[in-house]
């Protein structure tokens, strides 16, 4: 008999026990381990997805911030460039105004210096002219300058035309105060007397006189009464001298501090004739009669 029924029953029971054993020690632990691992992997994948989503979000935010930063930087750069341009313009304008002011001040100072120098030259030249003339007259003609000036003044009085003489006479008559004889130097008593006599003869009256030494104000001798004047001066000579001095000063090279200005002046202004070689135009001795004219 191939089938032993006791063995069949025992084997069936053994099989059921084996089913329980394997379920207890094999299937359940293995399946639990697989489920736990799958759950862990799913958790890791979910975590990775969450991190990826977070990273993408942060990337988007970063890109947006970066873009905003670039735009802000560009705007700031443009504003800075515009501000720098405006500031540069302001600085250039300020510098230009400063330079113009300095140039103007320098021109004013130069003009003042020239004026002061011209006045000094005029005064010195007047003194020198009178000194040279006085010495020359004394050495050559044995006459004093005051004497010769008085003589010339007297002669001029005599040579006055009738209209001028009448005008001056009217002024003398209308004057309440003595007429003034002002000279650049002290007139000796003899000269004063000679002038007094000449005036008396010229205007046929006893002209009351008051003598003053005017110093720098008058470059000769001047007779004035009630706004009318007559006189002789070397102002013409001095004017000519002053003009030549100006020409000399203009011909001088410009100061080292402004070579461009000197160059431009030398270019624009024509060459002046050498005062030493140019023919001197000696002006005539000025005799003026008129209201306030000198």
């Amino acid at each position, binding site marked *: 008999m191939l089938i032993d029924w006791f063995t*069949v029953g025992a084997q069936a029971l053994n099989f059921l026990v084996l089913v329980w054993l*394997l379920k207890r020690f094999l299937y359940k632990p*293995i399946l639990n381990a697989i489920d736990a691992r799958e759950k862990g992997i799913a958790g890791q994948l979910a975590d990775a997805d969450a991190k990826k989503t977070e990273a993408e979000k942060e990337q988007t935010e970063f890109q947006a911030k970066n873009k905003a930063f670039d735009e802000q930087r560009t705007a700031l750069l443009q504003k800075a460039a515009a501000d720098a341009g405006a500031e540069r313009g302001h600085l250039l304008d300020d510098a230009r105004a400063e330079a113009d002011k300095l140039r103007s001040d320098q021109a004013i100072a130069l003009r003042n210096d020239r004026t002061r120098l011209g006045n000094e030259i005029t005064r010195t030249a007047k003194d020198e002219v009178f000194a040279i003339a006085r010495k020359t007259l004394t050495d050559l003609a044995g006459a004093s300058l005051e004497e010769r000036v008085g003589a010339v003044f007297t002669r001029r009085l005599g040579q006055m035309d009738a209209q001028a003489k009448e005008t001056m006479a009217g002024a003398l008559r209308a004057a309440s105060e003595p007429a003034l004889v002002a000279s650049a130097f002290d007139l000796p008593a003899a000269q004063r007397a000679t002038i007094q006599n000449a005036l008396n003869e010229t205007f046929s009256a006893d002209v009351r006189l008051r003598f003053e030494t005017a110093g720098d104000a008058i470059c000769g001798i001047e007779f004035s009464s009630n706004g009318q004047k007559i006189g002789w001066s070397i102002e013409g000579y001095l004017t000519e001298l002053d003009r030549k001095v100006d020409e000399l000063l203009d011909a001088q090279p410009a100061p080292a501090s402004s070579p461009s200005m000197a160059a431009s002046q030398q270019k624009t202004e024509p060459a002046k004739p050498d005062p030493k070689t140019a023919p001197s135009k000696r002006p005539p001795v000025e005799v003026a009669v008129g209201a306030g004219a000198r």
Partner: protein
Amino acid sequence: MNLTSDQQILWQHGFVKLNGTIVTTWAMMIAMGLGSKLVTRKLKTEGAISRWQGLLEIVVTGIEKQIQDVGLNQPKKYLSFLGTLFLFVALCSLCIVIPGFRPPTGSLSTTAALALCVFVAVPLFGVRGQGLTGYLRTYTEPTVIMLPFNIISELSRTLALAVRLFGNMMSGVMIVGILLTITPFLFPIVMTALGLLTGMVQAYIFSILAAVYIAAATQVHKQAVSKAPPSG
């Protein structure tokens, strides 16, 4: 010559006896239980796993996938029964390489016991899946006339399961035993290797047939319900 190990009586007391089949089965049970216990003692749920754990996971998930492929959508409910069937038969087949080992599945009593287990398990799973009436109604499908034929089919397939496994396993062992007496050299080794192959195939066939029977018992009613027109 003993055809089966049933005839190796080690101890007997009346009807109760202890033969070679029962003893080798116990040995197989102890080996399988202890092996499982040892391997699953230190299971890892993350990181690198041990080779034995990997092997058992492959075996278990492979059985699970095969059950699912047969049509059982909840393979974990049937894994214990069908998986144990396959593992027991397969391990018995593998052990024929051990000299002097006579597999329990080479005993018609063992295969009949396994077939009886399947015979009992099929209606149990069927009743659990679709209720008693639902399961009993499957015997009258498609018509009531088919009831005796269905019953005969249920009995015959159980017999076929038992005899198929017994014949294949016993024949393999017998052929090797006979050939050892005729040509004791290379030829028995080739036949043993062939017996390993046929043993694994028989383990697969036995398990898959059991799964197919269970699937048929649990899903016929579902198919009928899905084919019925919607009520209401």
